[in-house]
């Protein structure tokens, strides 16, 4: 949501596209780090539950503030490319989709590279798996968490900024995207990027089919219905193996 709104305002202020994107990504990533430093890192009790409650609170503050300080309208944003639509294999679609697909591909490849090939990516996984052990090996877990907040802010802003030409920028638009991303990762299996990608595709196709054959009103509900069914049949997602909690 922040990504989308900031991008909208920068473009409004007739800042060139590429510059506006860079500013958007980094500013959101700085906001995310700030949130971590000021709030999350200072939680009195760092149980999962209290961190969840806190992040819900922060989300409320952000979206409420944008709603009050700016407005609650949906703002259209111009396509990034000069031509509005492309046709390929006899199908015509908005040019922005090319940007979305390209950005997603770049993101997946770079995240894969980051987590599997770089030292800092591996440390991040180690902290996620066992923070105590990582601390004992001299990892500064706070720094790693701060960095992961910054990255997630960056990625979130990227998603927000490139989707707004398709979906409009609005103060409460983040929620649906977040939830659908979650549904995709449930369908694909947690902690599994390929799975999440395929899960996302499955959900997207199911949504379009239901919009075409049933009614577009229920389009947004489809993702979650699929998610619940998958959770019933395969609680750990289609592509995931069981994870174990150590005692």
């Amino acid at each position, binding site marked *: 949501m922040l990504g989308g709104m900031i991008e909208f305002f920068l473009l409004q202020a007739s800042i060139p596209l590429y510059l506006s994107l860079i500013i958007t990504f980094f500013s959101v990533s700085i906001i995310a780090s700030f949130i971590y430093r000021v709030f999350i890192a200072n939680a009195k009790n760092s149980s999962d539950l209290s961190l969840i409650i806190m992040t819900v609170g922060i989300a409320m503050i952000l979206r409420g503030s944008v709603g009050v300080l700016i407005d609650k309208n949906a703002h259209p944003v111009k396509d990034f490319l000069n031509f509005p639509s492309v046709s390929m294999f006899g199908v015509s679609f908005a040019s922005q989709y090319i940007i979305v697909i390209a950005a997603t591909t770049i993101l997946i490849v770079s995240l894969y590279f980051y987590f599997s090939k770089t030292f800092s990516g591996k440390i991040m996984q180690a902290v996620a798996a066992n923070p105590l052990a990582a601390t004992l090996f001299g990892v500064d877990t706070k720094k790693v968490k701060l960095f992961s907040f910054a990255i997630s802010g960056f990625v979130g802003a990227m998603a927000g900024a490139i989707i707004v030409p398709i979906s409009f920028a609005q103060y409460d638009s983040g929620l649906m995207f977040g*939830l659908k991303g979650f549904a995709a990762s449930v369908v694909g299996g947690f902690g599994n990027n390929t799975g999440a990608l395929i899960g996302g595709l499955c959900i997207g196709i199911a949504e379009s089919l239901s919009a075409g054959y049933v009614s577009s009103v229920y389009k947004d509900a489809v993702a979650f219905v699929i998610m619940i069914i998958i959770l019933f049949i395969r609680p750990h997602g289609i592509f995931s193996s069981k994870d174990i909690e150590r*005692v």
Partner: protein
Amino acid sequence: MDSRIFLAIIAVIVAVSGIFLNSPFLLSMLALAALTLIVTTGLNLLLGFTGQISLGHAGFVALGAYMSALLAIKFSINPWLSIFIATILSSLIGAIIGYPTLKLKSHYLAMATLAIGEVINILIMGTVSITGGPQGLTAIPMLSIFGFTFDDDRKFYFFAWFTALSLLLVSINLTKSRFGRALQAIKSKEIAAEAFGINVHMYKVIIFTLSVSYASLAGGLFAFYIGFISPFSFGILNSIEYVVMVVIGGMGSFFGVLFSTIILSILPNIFSGLKEFWPIADGFLLVFAMMFLPDGLKKLFSWIKQ
């Protein structure tokens, strides 16, 4: 002091204010607070005692409200019976949804319940021919029993508070037994709870279902009291509002939640000009509580009790 004595004192205060308050605005506000209290008491069992979050409880309130109203309007079923049937049906739906989702760890559970609340809202918005969609549902009959109609705010005030405090008593009694201990065991150490014979997943599903039935019942009563329902009363912001009430009241403290529910449901009505700012205030309350007051008003109450 025993919680039941405390409850009795509160019942007396509620009754006395019911007799002496003369403003219909105040009475109706307090009656609605009682309905909200039913929801937050159920959510407290789930969130405060068992440690499982639900960010979709407003969806279940909506389920109860719409099902009981529709049963009464479309099938001309007696309102009491339709509330009863709707509560049973929503509990069933709650159990079916809860079974797979409660296998998820906390942050995934938060997302899943948020999604469920949204789905219910989308379905209500979408099925215009049945629910009236965004226009809402009107002409819901009044509740009446043996020729006695709950047609003014005072009558409903007493009825709502009687129901809310009875359910509060049920919850207090339940948690003062081995079941309450089992729930708290699940909240703090799931694996140890399992090793001591507590079927963790089953308990979670049962408590989730129970809290859904509280929410649904409150929804049904709300529909018949106000006579009009629309999907906008049961959105995500409402779900989060319930969580705020439980967190500020103190997770696991019924009386803390009682007070936070009354205060937080009255304040927005008094400062109705600041409606826009309310979600932000909710957000700040959550963050503030987690940073400085993780026990909410609980501490205050254990101090008063001593």
